[in-house]
């Protein structure tokens, strides 16, 4: 998967549902379609829920990396 540059970055690794979802959605609201949001979230439920919810709402997860501390770094293309 080719690396896309991020247009915005948020760290929500301290958050769980529903805040993780709300913060991700608010960040996406600031972007145009096709722009990329990069975020860091916890493993387990947060990454699970964010992945499912973003896919349900028509966004595209374009890259996933596992950090050394176990968190996930996702890049999300708005309405991709």
């Amino acid at each position: 998967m080719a690396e896309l540059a991020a247009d915005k970055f948020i760290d929500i690794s301290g958050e769980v549902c529903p805040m993780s979802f709300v913060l991700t959605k608010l960040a996406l609201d600031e972007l145009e379609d096709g722009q990329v949001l990069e975020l860091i979230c916890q493993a387990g439920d947060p990454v699970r829920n964010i992945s499912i919810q973003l896919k349900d709402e028509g966004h595209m997860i374009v890259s996933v990396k596992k950090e050394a501390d176990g968190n996930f770094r996702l890049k999300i293309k708005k309405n991709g």
Partner: protein
Amino acid sequence: MGDTVTKKKKLKISVDHNLEERTIKRIEVNAEVSGKKPVGKINFAELRAGGFIKQRQKDKFTVRLKCPGGSMTLDRLKKIVEAVEQFGGGQLHLSTRQSMEILHVDYHNFGPLVEMLKESSQEVASCGPRVRVPNACGGCSYNPNGITDTQKMAETVNEKFFGMRTNHKFKMSFSGCPHDCIHAASADLGLIGAVWPVWEEASCTGCTICASACTEGAIESHPETGKPVFDADKCLYCDDCVRACPTSSWTAGKSGHNLRVGGHHGRHPVNSTIAARFLSDEEAEAAIGATIAWYQKAGEGKGRIRLGNLLMQEGQMESYLEALTEAIGPEKLAEDIQRPHKITIRR
């Protein structure tokens, strides 16, 4: 009436409500009770179908309303409010099986109450030994976990099977996914939405999200590649891996309703057993029809016995599965089918 009672005794029909109903159907009276003004006709056939439940209070009944899947339109709700104002005691109750119930209705008012509700197509539900209104969770129509359209199922199944006579009560519940929020596993017949996940290696990036998504431990990530290692025995068919995978490497190989039969709660709770998997809506309907027909036939002369207790008897599960196979074919029968079994509770 006296005649009927003797006949019933002679025939020794253990499930006698059919006979009783046929007799009573013809009687329509003007209810006139001393001190009360006449309130129009009471249709006893309608009363017999159930849904009118005697309260502790003198002359007062709870009237249970049909709300398949727990759904209610604004039209019906407004009419119900009107009916409560006129005939109820100013109070509604939500039954444990998703029905609205109008409390404190004087039985003299049954006739006009039913007529008023009909203006918005609101019908009275049932009680007693018959097919009850099916329950359902939100299912896929708005719940994000939903795999099947449980609301639509509740409506069509209610239209086709509601009120049919059975040996004992027959309750159906439909859940949209294995979370089983509506407790389909403890219904006489339950449907639970299910997906069989299939993985395609070519598009997989090894991101490990599916392993995070699976709460059953059915997916482990390969320590080097990050790609999923799938343990089919642990899979609960929940669809989470399919929904979470960013590259759609997991897809739904099969999906539909898992069929459970023979559960119930109550004094002697019974856990249902899984009988078939991944049924389409049409197959599920056929399975329901076959189950009710089998229950009516196999239960003949056996009195008030729940489906699960009947299935626990020697040879009955085998006979039921034959009937089920006739309706839906052998391919979708579950593997290694058990009988329903009693849940032990301490007294």
